[in-house]
């Protein structure tokens, strides 16, 4: 065992710890089709649920006739709001402090809203019977525009009639939800009044949808003998779901076991609680049989949580040399029929107040008004921390708009306004303390990597050729330097339904030197089983291959708030490091006993404790593990395990520099991404291969959002993009090649210096693509054009600028 033939570097390599491009252990099952998703779960006597949904966006529900549906052989029950009302379950609380109908209670507020729930012996019978439920609707006027909704006499939420106080303060109108203000309004307006230059623009970030490959679903199974409910589901926050189910159902929390099996992508769509969960639980309690509900693609796109839909009116003030002096933003946020945004409770517009971005802006003001409309509820963080992608898009567009106004190069304008490396920790005007950053280094590296000056020269030449009639293609250079705020969050200001947003890890070392770790987060494709084992491997010196990670079962995993908002590594990852260190501290005492020295005489050496000055005298972690179970050590309990509940002292602030080079055909509106360069600084890097995968996935989702993906409504409130025929998901055909790069600026407060990376590419990618489109048309007079930049809209830009002769 006392192997001294390997160097410390070789021993570290063998651990496959942090920094190793370790292959994903999950992929053994995924690449063989052996994943176990909710829809793979089959229980004896399992029934199936299907919803009757409203074809109207706003209507009174006059009557619901179940007779024809109940007459279908195999139909067990048809639930309506009337059936749920005696249980108090016809409405449920939302994460945003509002309430939401589980089944239509007298009226419907968006197309696709759940009206009745049919339970049958198989999925086909349930679907057929749902079509036989006769619902008599009386159409009401439809409001799909938030600005119109704030002026309209039409009352959407009659249940809130007369309530002038909402969950987040006063309501100004019957369709108004809240006003959220940050920063200094008077000081900002004074700066705007005195500034050399003020650029003003409306920046719209359209409504879109996370659209995970696997839709939302659950299996509820009530065991009437034990009184225990097991709820399998596509939950990004299984513990929070258990608490919510307990609070609304009245079942004791120890009698509820929530299990998130393999999840086929979440991206925020699977954070909230949906009517399907409540109805399935009720149906299982009533029938005593398991009930499965899995939504189809159309249901997913039209009814479960959307993202974005922010109208951001901005003003940015600067000196004539380009030094930014102030930022003002008023956002009108379209929340749909119910306020079901998934944000920490005290942040009704999420962390939108990160909208000063990477820039040293001394004075700023932000106000957000939430509005009810006849659209689906939601407002989730689609591969971003809460409303951070909206904030990043806003500031990165405003910088471009200011550059046009100043007639300045946008790269230089950014450079002269970046927060400098020696200003960290940096206190932003809108209330955040940025932990660390080195923006100038990242920016210079990015500009050099793409040969920025060369690109601008090529662009100038292209414009000449275009004007001379030699080409019909323009060149756009899309710049972005984003700063994120992730890792929610400190319990002092971050909670979901009152539960602090800490996270957790429990590690048990087995006698033979292998281990199992359980965390409060849950992977939906992030590769936790691979990367969290790497953190432990580096911290305690056991090979990652000998460490199992288990998550998603509330009966075994320690309490945690789940995975979204890039919080797994910043919070659960920190808990994992801290739990590991507790184990190492005990291991040091065991090693001291075994080596008959004082613990202070030992030093840690990759995978062992060695006596200081006598490296040949050591005990490996594997030896220590065995001793923990077979030696009677005075003053120490047997065993080797630890648990940590980690309350982060601050958020983490990953950043990056993205540059997109795009060719645009002015006659067809077609675009072609010639180059996409993504430099990410996520602090300490745990697994470079997984980071690269995250960046590829996130940039591809950003491409989708910027260049075509949207949830569009017509004036009747019909969802016009309810299938993948109309809702853009990039395939290999549209997806360009990406060049990834990095700098490393560790977080000073995180135990291993990691900041999180899963969402950076979406946050930074969207403005990079959008800015490329705008940049191509800048010489011809374009200032602002709303996303998504599909071929038709790009063609309209060219047409509007008179470029079609």
């Amino acid at each position, binding site marked *: 065992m006392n192997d001294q033939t390997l160097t410390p570097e070789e021993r570290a390599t063998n651990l496959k710890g942090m920094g190793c491009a370790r292959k994903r252990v999950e992929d053994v099952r995924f690449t063989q089709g052996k994943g176990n998703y909710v829809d793979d779960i089959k229980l004896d006597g399992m029934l199936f649920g299907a919803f009757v949904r409203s074809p109207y966006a706003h209507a009174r529900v006059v009557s619901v006739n179940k007779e024809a549906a109940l007459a279908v052989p195999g139909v067990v029950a048809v639930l309506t709001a009337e059936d749920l009302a005696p249980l108090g379950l016809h409405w449920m609380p939302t994460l945003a402090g509002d309430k939401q109908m589980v089944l239509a209670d007298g009226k419907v507020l968006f197309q696709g809203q759940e009206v009745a729930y049919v339970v049958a012996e198989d999925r086909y019978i349930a679907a057929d019977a749902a*079509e036989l439920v006769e619902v008599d609707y009386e159409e009401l006027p439809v409001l799909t525009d938030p600005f119109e909704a704030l002026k309209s006499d039409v009352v959407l939420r009659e249940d809130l009639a007369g309530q002038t106080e909402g969950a987040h303060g006063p309501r100004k109108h019957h369709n108004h939800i809240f006003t959220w203000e940050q920063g200094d309004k008077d000081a900002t307006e004074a700066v705007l009044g005195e500034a050399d230059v003020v650029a003003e623009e409306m920046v719209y970030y359209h409504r879109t949808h996370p659209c995970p490959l696997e839709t939302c679903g659950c299996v509820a199974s009530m065991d009437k003998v034990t009184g225990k409910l097991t709820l399998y589901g596509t939950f990004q926050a299984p513990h929070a779901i258990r608490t919510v189910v307990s609070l609304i159902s009245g079942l004791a929390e120890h009698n509820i076991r929530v299990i998130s099996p393999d999840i086929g992508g979440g991206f925020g769509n699977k954070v909230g609680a949906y009517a399907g969960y409540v109805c399935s639980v009720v149906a299982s309690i009533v029938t005593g049989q398991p009930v499965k509900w899995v939504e189809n693609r159309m249901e997913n796109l039209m009814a479960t949580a959307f993202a974005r839909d922010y109208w951001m009116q901005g003003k940015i003030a600067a000196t004539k040399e380009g030094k930014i002096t102030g930022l003002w933003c008023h956002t009108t946020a379209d929340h749909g029929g119910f306020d079901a945004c998934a944000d920490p409770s005290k942040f009704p517009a999420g962390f939108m107040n990160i909208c000063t971005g990477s820039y040293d802006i001394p004075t700023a003001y932000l106000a957000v008004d939430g509005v009810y409309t006849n659209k689906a509820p939601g407002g989730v963080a689609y591969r971003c921390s809460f409303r951070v992608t909206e904030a990043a898009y806003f500031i990165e567009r405003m910088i471009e708009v200011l550059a046009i106004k100043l007639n300045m190069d946008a790269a230089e304008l950014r450079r002269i306004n970046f927060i400098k490396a020696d200003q960290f920790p940096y206190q932003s005007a809108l209330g955040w303390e940025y932990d660390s950053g080195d923006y100038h280094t990242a920016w210079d590296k990015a500009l050099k990597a793409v040969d920025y000056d060369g690109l601008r020269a090529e662009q100038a030449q292209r414009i000449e050729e275009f004007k001379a009639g030699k080409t019909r293609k323009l060149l756009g250079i899309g710049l972005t330097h984003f700063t994120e705020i992730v890792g929610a969050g400190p319990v002092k200001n971050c909670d979901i339904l009152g539960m602090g947003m800490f996270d957790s890890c429990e590690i048990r070392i087995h006698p033979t030197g292998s281990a199992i770790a359980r965390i409060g987060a849950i992977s939906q494709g992030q590769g936790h089983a691979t990367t969290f084992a790497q953190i432990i491997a580096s911290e305690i010196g056991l090979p990652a291959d000998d460490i199992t990670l288990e998550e998603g079962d509330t009966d075994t995993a320690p309490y945690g708030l789940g995975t979204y908002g890039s919080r797994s590594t910043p919070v659960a990852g920190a808990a994992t490091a801290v739990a590991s260190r507790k184990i190492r501290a005990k291991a040091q005492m065991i090693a001291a006993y075994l080596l008959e020295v004082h613990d202070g005489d030992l030093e840690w050496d990759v995978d062992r404790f060695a006596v200081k000055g006598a490296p040949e005298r050591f005990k490996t972690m594997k030896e220590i593990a065995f001793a923990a179970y077979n030696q009677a050590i005075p003053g120490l309990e047997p065993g080797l395990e630890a648990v940590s509940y980690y309350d982060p002292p601050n958020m983490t602030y990953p950043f990056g520099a993205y540059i997109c080079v795009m060719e645009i055909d002015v006659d067809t509106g077609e675009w072609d991404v010639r180059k996409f360069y993504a430099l990410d600084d996520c602090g300490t890097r745990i697994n470079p291969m997984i980071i690269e995968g995250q960046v590829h996935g996130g940039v591809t989702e950003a491409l989708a959002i910027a260049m075509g993906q949207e949830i569009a409504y017509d004036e009747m409130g*019909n969802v016009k993009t309810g*299938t993948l025929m109309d809702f853009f998901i990039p395939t290999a055909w549209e997806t360009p090649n990406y060049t990834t790069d990095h700098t490393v600026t560790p977080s000073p407060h995180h135990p291993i210096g990691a900041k999180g990376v899963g969402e950076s590419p979406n946050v930074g990618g969207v403005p990079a693509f959008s800015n490329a489109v705008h940049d191509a048309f800048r010489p011809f007079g374009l200032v602002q054009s709303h996303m998504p930049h599909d071929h038709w809209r790009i063609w309209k830009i060219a047409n509007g600028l008179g470029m079609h002769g």
Partner: protein
Amino acid sequence: MELTDEIRISAPRDVVYRALNDPEVLKDCIPGCEELTQNSPTELEAKVVLKIGPVKARFSGEVTLDTTNAPDRFSLTGEGKGGAAGFAKGGAEVTLTEDGDETVLTYTAKVDVGGKIAQLGSRLIAGTAKKLSGKFFTSFGEIVSEQSVS
């Protein structure tokens, strides 16, 4: 969605107009029509099975006619409900112009659809609507021409 078309029918205008008001003729011409009842000279009630892409549903509808300027022109408005499949509502302006022994029928219809049928994308709906109206007028032209001859 707007539909416009012009159809030439080999029958005099009064024959065409009479046929347009004959529930039996209409029932035979409307694709998928199962029932058609005339409740009053200006009110019709119908049950029609429609298939649009993957959605097949039975629509119950009511149609009201405005015959103030008949037989030169008349208009109709209606609404049909197809349960889970959605709903449709709209109206049409029809003109009948004599041209020798023949009649030229032109119509402009405006139709709004909601629910599942609307979500399948306007491409599919517009194409189907054109096909259905084409079918209607082909059958209508044939029946009316026969009536005119006999």
